[in-house]
């Protein structure tokens, strides 16, 4: 069973990059397409080794790789995976083949560069989740902008160039100050090692500024209200596969950044600004849901629902207690699967009808029952119906949030109701009622074929697996989350016990975790 492969994480990270190079070099569109799909599938299979070789119950980083990258500043090429990042990596490698396969079926324009960019994006995303060094993390974090920028700008909808530029500049400007914060942290602690930073007492003055810079960068990425305005543009304009990846994985870089860096590395500042962030998260939940309710375009409805859903994830992260954080980790995966699936379903419909306006549909139950049935499951998963994945994550987050500050749990619960409302409204307009438009007739509209089912069914199965057996996942997530929280508590106690002078950067107390 324990088949140990050296450099497993590097292989998972850079297989797509290798695939991208090969895709660029081989001639012929057909070969490019299938090579890209093969690369993502192989990457997925290899990443499953993380699951099979997992050291159950171990809290720390596994499969660690560590090498010097740039000695003068102590920058390291360090990769590792724990319960927090494991499922985000698997989510990425799982969604990629689906997105690529969808593109094989429906993208005709310049398939070579398209596939290469998708694969480059995969490398950057996996790298973000695996990096254990701040600089390495930042490099992957920023590098993901370039492929996404081209994917939106070249293969997107009508307003794609505006959306692409906005996406790039927003996120680039948002993370500009993070570079300075990374450097400030380095010079006050002497390390870029993320895990070591989590167990280091950082002076309060440094914490405040660094936290704000990190929080801004991740708030733009997540996106947290009011930094979300790039998201609807980018989502709506991106090609379907791009939306799947953008919503499914890319946004998680922001919440993951909070969870891995901003909150545990700067605990005091995080505690201080926690309520403010929680307010923003709640505003995002309610605002996103209300705007989603107003949308006439299904895709922008899903886009705004992301703003709302990421608000829950943020609440759990901000709560910084076991339930909140574990729930958030699972909810990140859930949102990736559910919203990815929603974009996929919308994309499938769009390829048939070339419209996404709710008013153009109606009566789909009768004409395309398989599609409609699956759409209902996907929508319910997104709305958090018990028995499906979304419920488990949201409920756990609510518990954590209630423990943190009950008022936020109440507000978030209101968001759950709104979510059910806008998703069901959309479903009603699309599926129920009589067929008013002949284009929706069963003679004109084909139901899902086997190729399309191959993409949708695995997602739907996972909804049930997570919804019915959440402990399969929590068992791996919880130890790492608990360890992180223990370290955090220890660091905060050490900070108060030592009574460090506020601005004395030199005195740094490193407390051992546990």
């Amino acid at each position, binding site marked *: 069973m324990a088949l140990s492969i050296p450099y497993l994480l590097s292989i998972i990270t850079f297989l797509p990059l290798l695939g991208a190079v090969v895709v660029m070099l081989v001639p012929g569109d057909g070969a490019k397409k299938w090579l890209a799909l093969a690369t993502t599938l192989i990457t997925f299979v290899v990443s499953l080794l993380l699951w099979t070789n997992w050291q159950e119950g171990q809290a720390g980083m596994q499969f660690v790789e560590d090498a010097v990258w740039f000695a003068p500043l102590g920058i390291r090429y360090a990769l590792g995976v724990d319960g927090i990042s494991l499922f985000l990596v698997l989510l990425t490698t799982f969604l990629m083949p689906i997105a690529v396969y969808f593109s094989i079926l429906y993208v005709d324009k310049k398939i070579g560069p398209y596939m290469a960019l998708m694969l480059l994006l995969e490398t950057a995303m996996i790298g973000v989740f695996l990096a254990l060094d701040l600089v390495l993390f930042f490099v992957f974090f920023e590098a993901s902008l370039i492929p996404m920028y081209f994917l939106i700008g070249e293969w997107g909808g009508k307003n794609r160039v505006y959306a692409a530029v906005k996406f790039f*500049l927003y996120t680039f400007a948002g993370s500009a100050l993070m570079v*300075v914060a990374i*450097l400030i942290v380095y010079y006050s602690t002497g390390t870029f090692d993320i895990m070591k930073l989590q167990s280091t007492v950082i002076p309060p003055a440094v914490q405040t500024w660094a936290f704000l810079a990190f929080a801004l960068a991740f708030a733009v990425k997540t996106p947290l209200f009011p930094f979300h305005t790039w998201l609807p543009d980018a989502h709506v304009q991106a090609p379907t596969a791009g939306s799947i990846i953008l919503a499914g994985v890319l946004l998680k870089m922001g919440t993951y950044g909070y969870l891995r860096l901003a909150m545990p590395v700067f605990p005091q500042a995080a505690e201080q600004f926690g309520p403010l962030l929680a307010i923003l998260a709640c505003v995002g939940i309610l605002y996103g849901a209300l705007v989603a309710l107003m949308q006439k375009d299904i895709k922008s409805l899903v886009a705004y629902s992301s703003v709302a859903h990421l608000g829950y994830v943020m609440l759990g992260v901000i709560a910084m207690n076991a339930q909140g954080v574990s729930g958030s980790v699972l909810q990140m995966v859930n949102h990736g699967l559910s919203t990815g699936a929603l974009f996929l379903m919308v994309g499938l419909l769009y390829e048939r009808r070339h419209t996404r306006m709710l008013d153009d549909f109606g009566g789909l139950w009768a004409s395309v029952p398989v599609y409609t049935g699956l759409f209902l499951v996907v929508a319910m998963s997104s709305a958090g119906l018990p028995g499906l994945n979304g419920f488990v994550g949201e409920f756990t987050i609510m518990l954590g949030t209630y423990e943190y500050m009950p008022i936020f749990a109440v507000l978030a619960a209101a968001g759950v109701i709104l979510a059910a409302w806008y998703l069901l409204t959309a479903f009603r307009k699309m599926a129920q009622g009589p067929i008013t438009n002949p284009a929706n007739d069963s003679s004109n509209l084909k139901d899902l074929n086997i190729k399309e089912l191959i993409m949708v069914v695995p997602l739907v199965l996972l909804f049930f697996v997570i919804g019915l057996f959440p402990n399969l996942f929590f068992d791996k997530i919880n130890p790492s989350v608990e360890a992180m929280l223990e370290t955090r508590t220890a660091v905060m106690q050490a900070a108060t016990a030592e009574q460090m002078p506020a601005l004395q950067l030199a005195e740094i107390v490193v407390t051992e975790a546990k």
Partner: protein
Amino acid sequence: MSSAAMELNLNAVLPELVMVVAAAVVMLVDILNRGGRSVTRPFLPWVALAGVAVTAGVSLWLLGEPVSTFQGMLITDGRSLALNLVTLTGAALAILLSIRYIPAVNNQTGEYYALILLITSGMMVMGAALDLMVVFLGLEIFSMGLYILAGLKRSDLRSNEAAMKYFLLGAFASAFFVYGVAFVYGATGSTQFNAIAAAQAAGTADLSFLYVGIALLIAGFGFKVSLVPFHMWTPDVYQGAPTPVTAFMSIGTKAGAFAAFYRFFVTGVPDAQPVWGWALAILAVLTMTLGNLAALRQTSLKRLLAYSSIAHAGYILVGLATATPAAIDGALYYLISYAFMNMGAFAIVILLERQGEMDALSNRLAGLSKTHPQLALVMSVFMFSLAGVPPFAGFFAKFFVFAAAVEGGWSWLAAIAMLNSAIGAYYYLRIVVSMYFDEPTAETLTESPNYSLPITVTLGIAAVFTIALGVLPSLWTNLVETGVMGTLALR
């Protein structure tokens, strides 16, 4: 070995000597062409390149123990040698770009290549100087050459204007510089960095005179590296000069002047850092911000790159405000990265130029990805790198320089610099947008560009190193490490 022999160690000036000899060889080879024949003319660039290659070899061979000579007026150490590699890279790539370009501009190619080599030697002298008079010598050697090269196209009004403007303003700047030297000499009794520092340490220096001197020196240096408000000449000269000259100028002058700049401030007047640190920080903020804001509105690619180069001078200056050893390493890294990415960008401009023109408007790029996908791809690499996006060289360049600033307690300056790079991203991105997302127009480069092997090679080298230095920054630091670290231990 006696101390007198130590003082005249020619090893210390070996790279410069080789360069000057190479320039002489180029001129000798050119003599064979008299009388309208041009038998040897095609070989001139290769002779020049060989000179550059030998000099680079000598520089690498000399790495190790620092050697000083001429009573400590000049030193060959890791920093000066690393700087040699930067200027030599610039010179080599500029020569490659010139092979096709220059004969169409001016027939006197012999003088051209000889001047390129002499200019490079001047820049190298600046990197090695430990005395303000030697700095001035280097400054004038390379400036004189560049005045001539800027006006190389005698029939072109813009080129004439560029030369004239550059010369007049350059002469002013030199006057400021010399005046500053005089003040510093008056205040401390010496022009040698060590002695200047010693006079301050001993308290014998007249501080008010010294500060006036430093201010004048900043003006002189500031002109050469085009800091705001001494930058007025830059866009016109960049636009008017033949493009390979512009490319060379943008890298070489920055490298030479910053090297001398850094060395003077770090070793010559470290005690006055609280004063000039603030002055330089303010200049850096002005330079970055104005450079970037002006670049936003340019349609001429050469003017855009001119303002971008002003902004980059501002970034490099950020490290100097702190004047720590790390800042020197960072600045060197910045310069070598800038050499590759900026040379690459100028190589593209050359390909975009119409016959007989020495500039291209940005609409030449519209839809370039459809007509010339490879060109668009490498240009994007250079643009992303100039914007400072990882994983390209420009990211680590900024990271290292700003790291030094943060280490020295200038976090706010680094923050302003990073916000500036976000502004910069806008106009670099606009070029990428135009290449990829605009449809080709009548202006777009559709004809097969004037590809020649040397330009292709230049683009290849520039792109490969722009990526390599972004992925493996230790490539460069390992190369110069022994020397750089040795120097820092020394002073």
